[in-house]
């Protein structure tokens, strides 16, 4: 057998906190484990490690929660398992994961699968969001913490949710002037997050740490503000910011212009569920968890009994939730093999983390009025260059289902496969800001890979 095909007891997708926690425990119990991860090193986006050979840290202060990350990485990298990095999974069936790795088409065969592919930033289209220099909040963190690159001199951070804080502190630590840090939720709405923070010791410590960082740099969050537009010649040079009402609708007469050379916009996260849907898992729409999330039983098992899921794929919740649910996946799989249930204390710990995260994130569920930032000529689909007006016309002519809109104007049919425009496309096209979106349709390849990868797939799917 060539090395193009790997056999393992368990295949894990994603080497973030969820995948690492599951894989380390399964390997310690003597199972053969193969992990597929798209990044060059373990850690996931949240605990992203700098490239091999770089100083261990880029010198940016880290929040206390990163101690958990270092511990998970330490154990994972010493575990007896196979971790394949730079692996893009593009198709799957129960027991099979097809992936592209270093330009080659490979296959992982396994009895069980644990999915922990994470989440990505939710984008909300606004005029000028396609200008180079306007990136997601997550992109800025990768830049600074992952690569030691200073994103610019004068930054705007805008969006919603707890991830604005690590973005702002990373920029401040890198010596960037944060001209404005805008949280679209009002202070009052954000107060609803308090029970999830106060009731959880780790989250409490984390919040205090961030407050201290902001205070030290004389920075502050502006509540109820957001970015209205970005402008510039070939790249961003100015941003127009202003106040929004309780639903996120821009308030007239509040706009002002600031000079910036980089903008990070992040309106929460969207769970990466495509692989789960392809494998037969069911999903449910939960706005407070970022949209469609996989449905799992209390042992993190999906509707396909050989497939388990941990972390953001079951709904955005953060690294602590992911690690706790990863541990549940491992306990459940080991339990199945021994003919017993998962350990109750492991289930309890995961439930408690999930509860705290749900309480906190409910206060930052996407504000429907932010969909009014886009004007008729604003691009909604960046892959296919489709404007909001074109998407509206498609909905009028072809119908307001996601499928009809896509067919009518090609929005969502480019290489990102609607990951970027999808979460707001239907609202943009129909003007129904609060509507429940249609469930995403998965297409193979799940990510754009070379034609040769598909042509040469082992055990063609």
């Amino acid at each position: 057998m060539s090395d193009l095909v790997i056999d393992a007891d368990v295949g894990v997708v994603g080497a973030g906190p969820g995948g690492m926690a599951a894989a380390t425990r399964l390997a310690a119990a003597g199972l053969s484990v193969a992990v597929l991860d798209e990044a060059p090193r373990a850690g996931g986006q949240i605990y992203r490690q700098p490239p091999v050979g770089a100083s261990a840290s880029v010198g940016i202060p880290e929040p206390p929660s990163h101690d958990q990350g270092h511990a998970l990485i330490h154990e994972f990298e010493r575990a007896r398992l196979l971790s394949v990095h730079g692996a893009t999974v593009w198709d799957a069936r129960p027991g099979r994961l097809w992936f592209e790795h270093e330009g080659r088409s490979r296959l992982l065969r396994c009895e069980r699968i644990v999915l922990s592919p994470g989440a990505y930033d939710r984008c909300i289209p606004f005029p000028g969001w396609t200008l180079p220099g306007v990136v997601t909040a997550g992109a800025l963190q990768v830049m600074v913490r992952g690569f030691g690159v200073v994103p610019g001199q004068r930054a705007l951070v805008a969006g919603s949710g707890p991830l604005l804080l690590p973005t702002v502190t990373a920029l401040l630590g890198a010596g960037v002037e944060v001209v404005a840090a805008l949280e679209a939720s009002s202070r009052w709405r954000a107060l609803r997050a308090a029970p999830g923070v106060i009731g959880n010791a780790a989250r409490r410590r984390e919040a205090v740490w961030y407050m201290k960082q902001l205070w030290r740099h004389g920075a502050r969050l502006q509540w109820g503000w957001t970015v209205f537009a970005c402008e510039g010649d070939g790249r961003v040079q100015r941003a127009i910011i202003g106040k929004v009402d309780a639903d996120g609708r821009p308030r007239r007469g509040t706009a002002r212009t600031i000079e910036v050379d980089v903008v990070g916009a992040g309106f929460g996260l969207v769970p990466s569920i495509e692989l789960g849907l392809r494998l037969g898992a069911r999903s449910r729409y939960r706005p407070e968890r970022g949209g469609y999330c996989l449905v799992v039983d209390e042992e993190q098992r999906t509707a396909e009994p050989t497939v388990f899921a941990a972390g953001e794929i079951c709904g955005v919740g953060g690294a602590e939730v992911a690690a706790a649910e990863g541990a549940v996946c491992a306990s459940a799989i080991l339990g199945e093999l021994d003919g017993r249930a998962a350990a109750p204390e492991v289930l309890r710990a995961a439930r408690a983390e999930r509860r705290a995260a749900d309480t906190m994130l409910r206060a930052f569920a996407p504000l429907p009025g932010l969909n009014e930032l886009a004007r008729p000529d604003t691009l909604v689909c960046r892959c296919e260059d489709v404007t909001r007006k074109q998407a509206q016309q498609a909905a009028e002519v072809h119908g307001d289902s996601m499928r009809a809109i896509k067919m009518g104007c090609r929005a969502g049919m480019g290489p990102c496969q609607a990951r970027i425009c999808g979460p707001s496309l239907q609202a943009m096209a129909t003007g129904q800001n609060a509507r429940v979106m249609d469930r995403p349709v998965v297409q193979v390849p799940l990510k754009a890979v070379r034609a040769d990868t598909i042509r040469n797939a082992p055990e063609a799917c």
Partner: protein
Amino acid sequence: MSGRLTDADGRERVEFTFEGDAVSAYAGDTIAMALWAAQAAALRRSSSAGEPRGVLCNMGVCYECLVTVDGHNVRSCMTVVRAGMVVERGGRQ
């Protein structure tokens, strides 16, 4: 203007070209990060309007940072630089 944190340079230098211009990166950099540090923000031209586009997600999701390496479209945020790599702007030329 962007650049590097001083602590990041414990790594070897790697030279490559982008649109014919020499770019000096650090080993382990992705193409996208090396180009960002070198002030090259526009990485591709958009599909119909031909507008400049650059890094958006920086984690392999959005495909906005597509460039061409040896005739293949690659996500510059997911592709690590190699010495002598010839990188061209992606999308419409």
